[in-house]
């Protein structure tokens, strides 16, 4: 075999070959901390992201415990404010935003496009250290007593009245932001310039397209957040009047600047998830993705429209009602490409030979939860309903469905789907299926009651509430413990699988992507010779197993 090609039928029992050498070979600490290799940097990111996930979850555990009763009995109101701020800052900037792009994007983009590395390997390492620097600021904030502004840093509270390490928190987010920018620049340059022979733009895997779209948002939205944080730090530290109403400044201007970044940031969290789900669903349905070009255009359209909808966070802030009207309309528009994606995933499943491995279960969970997000998003985009449920648990539930339900399901799908490639080990399938189902139930158990709570009027950011809300809060807190178990279980069995489980074949799922054509785990140079692509992406149909039933229900029952 002279060239590695996409879409060839892999030999069918795939040989379990221990690779001659892999990127994991030299174990010295320094060789990891000074590495410029994309696969190793992905592992470094995986470690820091997991660490911050645990910190953010810990804060949430205390919050959910506090909300079990209508009175304040676990923490003081001051501590409660600091807990939800910590939860928001850590989960948004140190967990969700870096998670899929920096772990799986870093690891997979060069493999999927047949490159040896990312375009700027040193910049890639710098981005990890910037992220770490930002993280250290956040840990300093945590030790020094926290911040009580909420993750949104609204002025004039954050600049004039809040006590706590606002500037340190802003610095942490600032450096994490530049880490994202470095990653975005790297991804765009890589995808433009390092595609292997035959890998045309419209043969790119949808995961790579998703990374491309998310990188555009990284480099165009994040700097606006950075300058906004510089401005509030300057106002707080030097007393420069920029958003101070006493000197004629306008706090609304801060909100515009903040949401100009922070709304696209939601799409930073969900676009990578869409990429992952596209890969997983096509693989386990053994179907070519339905409407590939539409999927690509939808990704790019979502990224583009995401820049024009920020005002829907400000319907009740005193913004001009005409602006509200336009932002409401544009927010409805973003639902169109999102719906295209949902329909195309469903179209891909139709008449597929579906099997329910763990990544597929997570991906199907994503599909359901994302649909709920899309529909409740329409509620919130219409001004009359938004005025009613603004700053209530309805909004909390809505954005947790997208961030936790959507992004985290996809993160776990990716983790299981590419675990054999990344580590060279299989994971225990039945445990994984159990965890996937538990996560779906735990998630709905936790967050569906919050839709009802919010609709009934429970405001966000309160730790003391009227007793009639207690039942729903108790349901939600109970669900959260199920959810926590569903998050921790994979961390345990995946770690265990590293030491005990059987070696993974090169292509355990018979998938078509280039990343499956090299060894598991891949060698440092990724491919022994540059791969050549001569097939369309997701060419699954021709290697369908003729022995398996074509009826998806039977196939599902058989698994």
């Amino acid at each position, binding site marked *: 075999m002279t060239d590695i090609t996409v879409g060839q039928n892999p030999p069918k029992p795939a040989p379990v070959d221990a690779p001659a050498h892999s990127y994991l070979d030299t174990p010295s600490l320094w060789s990891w901390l000074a590495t410029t290799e994309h696969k190793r940097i992905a592992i470094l990111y995986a470690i820091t992201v997991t660490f911050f996930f645990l910190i953010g979850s810990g804060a949430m555990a205390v919050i959910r415990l506090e909300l079990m009763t209508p009175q304040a009995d676990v923490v003081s109101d001051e501590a409660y404010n600091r807990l939800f701020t910590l939860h928001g800052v850590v989960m948004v900037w140190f967990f969700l935003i870096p998670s899929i792009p920096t772990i799986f994007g870093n690891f997979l983009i*060069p493999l999927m496009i047949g490159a040896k590395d990312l375009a700027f390997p040193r910049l890639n390492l710098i981005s990890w250290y910037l992220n770490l620097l930002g993280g250290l600021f956040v840990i300093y904030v945590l030790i020094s007593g926290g911040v009580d502004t909420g993750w949104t840093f609204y002025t004039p509270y954050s600049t004039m009245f809040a006590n706590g390490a606002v500037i340190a928190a802003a610095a942490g987010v600032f450096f994490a932001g530049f880490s994202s920018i470095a990653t975005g620049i790297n991804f765009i*340059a890589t995808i433009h310039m390092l595609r292997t022979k035959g890998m045309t733009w419209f043969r790119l895997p949808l995961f790579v397209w998703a990374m491309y779209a998310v990188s555009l948002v990284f*480099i165009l939205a994040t700097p*606006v957040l950075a300058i906004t944080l510089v401005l509030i730090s300057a106002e707080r530290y030097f007393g420069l009047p920029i958003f101070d109403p006493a000197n*004629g400044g306008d706090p609304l201007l801060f909100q515009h600047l903040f949401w100009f970044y922070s709304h696209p940031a939601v799409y930073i969290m969900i676009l990578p998830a869409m990429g992952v789900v596209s890969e997983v669903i096509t693989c386990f349905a053994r179907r070519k993705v339905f409407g590939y070009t539409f999927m690509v255009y939808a990704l790019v359209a979502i990224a583009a429209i995401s820049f024009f909808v920020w005002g829907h966070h400000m319907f009740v802030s005193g913004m001009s009602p005409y602006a509200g009207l336009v932002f409401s309309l544009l927010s409805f528009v973003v639902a169109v490409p999102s719906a295209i994606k949902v329909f195309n995933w469903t179209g891909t499943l139709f008449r597929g030979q579906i099997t329910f491995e763990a990544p597929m279960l997570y991906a199907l969970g994503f599909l359901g939860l994302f649909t709920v997000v899309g529909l409740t998003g329409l509620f919130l985009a219409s001004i009359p309903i938004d005025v009613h449920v603004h700053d209530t648990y309805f909004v909390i539930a809505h954005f947790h469905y997208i961030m936790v339900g959507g992004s985290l399901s996809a993160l776990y799908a990716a983790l299981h789907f590419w675990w054999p490639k990344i580590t060279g080990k299989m994971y225990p399938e039945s445990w994984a299926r159990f965890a996937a189902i538990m996560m779906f139930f735990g998630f709905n158990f936790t967050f569906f009651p919050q839709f009802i709570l919010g609709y009934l009027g429970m405001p966000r950011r309160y730790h003391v509430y009227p007793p009639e809300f207690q039942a729903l809060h108790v349901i939600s807190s109970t669900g959260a413990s199920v959810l926590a178990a569903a998050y921790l279980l994979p961390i345990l069995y995946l770690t265990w699988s590293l030491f005990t489980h059987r070696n993974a074949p090169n292509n355990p799922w018979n998938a078509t992507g280039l990343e499956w054509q090299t060894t598991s785990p891949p060698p440092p140079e990724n491919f022994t010779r540059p791969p050549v692509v001569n097939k369309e992406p997701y060419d699954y149909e021709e290697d369908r197993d003729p022995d398996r039933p074509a009826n998806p229900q039977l196939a599902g029952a058989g698994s």
Partner: protein
Amino acid sequence: MSSVSVDDTALPVAEPAVPEAWDTIEEEQEAASFGMWLFLATEMLFFGGLFLCYTVYRFTHADGFLAGARATDVKLGTINTVILLTSSLTMVMAVQGGRLGLRGLVWRCLAATAVLGAAFLAVKGYEWSQDLSRHLFPKAHFAIAECGASMFWALYWVMTGLHGIHLTIGVVIVTRLAWLMRGLTSLKIPDLITIGLYWHFVDTIWIFLYPLLYLSGRAP
């Protein structure tokens, strides 16, 4: 060009090592300048936030902004504009010299660019100290009473401060590059065009800052 003709001979070809991701140094050069353009897009939005604040407040507090702008030191600002535009000229000459393989021209022009950049910073530092002594830092004892002038000066400090930080970074990397170019046998390194782009960007920001901060409010 007599002064730079000393070592403009054909250069011996000694290729530096190509980093792992690339097959040839030309590809890497192309990627480096593409990456820099992407970074400049980022920088444009970074400064764009400031320009947005300026625009909004310029409309809501027109008189205060004009009163504030009249208090800036237009002489020093103009001198600095001339200095910075000249530094862009020397940077262009360095980049063009790199294309033609004129090593002596390249490192001398880079050194001149760094010196001009440092001169800008020196003048700016002097101007800042003058501003401070005239109570133009918008805190206690601020010199201008008009509403909005304090916001103009808040933006003045942030804008010129961030521009100064960018320029300081530029001076450091251009100095380093000039030093490297003196000893290097090959001009085939990707940094020259990339750093040139960065330098021109910082210059362009100043071209916007100059009229906004120094010229407004001074029309007869």
